């Protein structure tokens, strides 16, 4: 499909850099050498994912393509690209910043929704992001009761964060807007898988999730950077 270069927001990157709190830097120096993609674990399993192309589109200002892509949500945050980058571009920082931008456009909420529980139930209520609760029955069967193991190791049966500590992180959450942001996530209306045709279902990264009526409607993301790979797609 033909894209119009005049539609690109050419100076977006220059405008964005100073307000991004120092998280988004150096992308203008990108040589397009491909060293990042060459060592990327995500690119090795799904060829459509390509940090080099995403950086290119960001600098060019082709925001429509970046923000509506599935690929933006496939980064492993391993920082391998940063560790080999000849120009010291810290790409993982770009990813979480532009994921925020994509969410502002209505993309990717279904991915974040699966993580919201950790923040709300564990981080804010207990102060610890990972709880002792095991979802996998096989794990429970193998290891049994974790508090017993803790006690044998000479630790209290449960690690507890003091009430004062909890009050403080809750206030941080309220004051920094995290709480209201999470309310938004809670009210996300997910894609209705019944309306998808086969072709779209094949492209879809989203698995059916309980939907909830709310203000935000998620939009279908696209594989904008090539054909998706990976075992899941090979079988489909």
């Amino acid at each position, binding site marked *: 499909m033909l894209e119009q270069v005049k539609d690109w927001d050419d100076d977006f990157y220059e405008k964005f850099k100073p307000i991004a709190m120092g998280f988004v830097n150096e992308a203008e120096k990108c040589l397009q050498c491909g060293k990042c993609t060459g060592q990327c674990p995500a690119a090795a399993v799904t060829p459509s994912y390509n940090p080099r192309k995403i950086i290119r589109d960001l600098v060019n200002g082709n925001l429509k393509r970046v923000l509506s892509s599935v690929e933006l949500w*496939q980064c*492993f945050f*391993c920082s391998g690209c940063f560790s080999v980058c000849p120009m010291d571009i810290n790409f993982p920082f770009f990813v979480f910043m532009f994921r925020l931008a994509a969410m502002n456009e209505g993309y990717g909420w279904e991915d974040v929704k699966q993580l919201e529980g950790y923040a709300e139930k564990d981080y804010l209520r207990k102060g610890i992001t*990972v709880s002792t609760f095991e979802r996998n029955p096989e794990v429970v069967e193998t290891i049994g009761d974790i508090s017993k193991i803790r006690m044998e190791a000479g630790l209290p049966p449960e690690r507890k964060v003091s009430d004062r500590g909890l009050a*403080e992180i809750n206030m*941080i959450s309220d004051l920094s807007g995290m709480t209201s942001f999470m309310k938004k996530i809670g009210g996300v209306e997910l894609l209705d898988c019944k309306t998808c045709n086969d072709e779209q279902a094949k492209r879809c990264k989203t698995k059916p999730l309980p939907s909830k009526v709310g203000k935000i409607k998620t939009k279908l993301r696209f594989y904008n950077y090539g054909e998706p790979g990976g075992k899941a797609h090979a079988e489909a």
Partner: protein
Amino acid sequence: MPRLDKVTQIPKPEQIFFFKSCVASNKYPGIESCGWESLKILGVEPVDSDEQTCCGGFVTFANVAAPTASMPAVARNLSLAEEKNLDTCVLCNGCWTFLNEFGHFMNHNEEVKASVNMMMNMMGREYKGTSNVYHIAEMFYRLKDDIAKNVKRPLKGVKVATHYGCHYLGGGKYTAIDDAQMPTYMEELIEILGGTVVPYTANRECCGTGFTQIINGKDLSLEHTQHKLDSVQEADPDLLIVQCPYCHSQLDRVQQQLNYRQGANYQTPVIHIAQLIGLGLGLPVPKLAFAAHISGRQRLEEVLDRIGR
């Protein structure tokens, strides 16, 4: 090769703020107890605080909130160590990178620091940026001479493979104590404890957790971890050493999942560097809390039988 100039900068303090990790506390308590006890044996008194929470990086990298929510949480956790005038020792690569990176941003951006401090002041705290953050593996490498003196349970004939973890070496391109592509300090520690280092091809590959990919992009995550585990399996080590509880959880738990899903047979015990040091320093077996491990439990028992319980 470790960057010795960086290693010598690490102090050998009498006390250190022991920063607990979410995964280590709630999934693999052995990491917490071994880290605590080993530091004690090596002459560093760990100090903790029950006000310490999750480091706060999770919410930003999981996109449940903007980085503006992580910064005050990081500042708050660091201020706990600052109140005690101590440096911070973390167990987890994630904590290391988030505390370091966000701390770096606040220290270099006065405006952000001021706005974070406004929030801190409301809670009667202040973030100054004086506490250095060290990974427990860095501390162990700094204290390697003390470790050599205190080995009670030599790992004779135990084949050990290493996995460093991306958030330490990748994110710490300029701040970690070793080279991002060819690290060797864990190998040195293993040799000090008397173990045999087993190299394998995918050593510097990511564990595959992908931070949140294991939750919302499971297929990609498992495929990559399988690639890594295949390579480990080929080298056939008795123990796979990690220095990050999150890598630990991925490499340990995914083995079982793959065995179940595909009828594979991955049985490599995964243990944290703190547990390995604890093992070498002769901590009692319950303190190592191997009961919380899922894969290769039998092999772990065999190793314990061989080197003495």
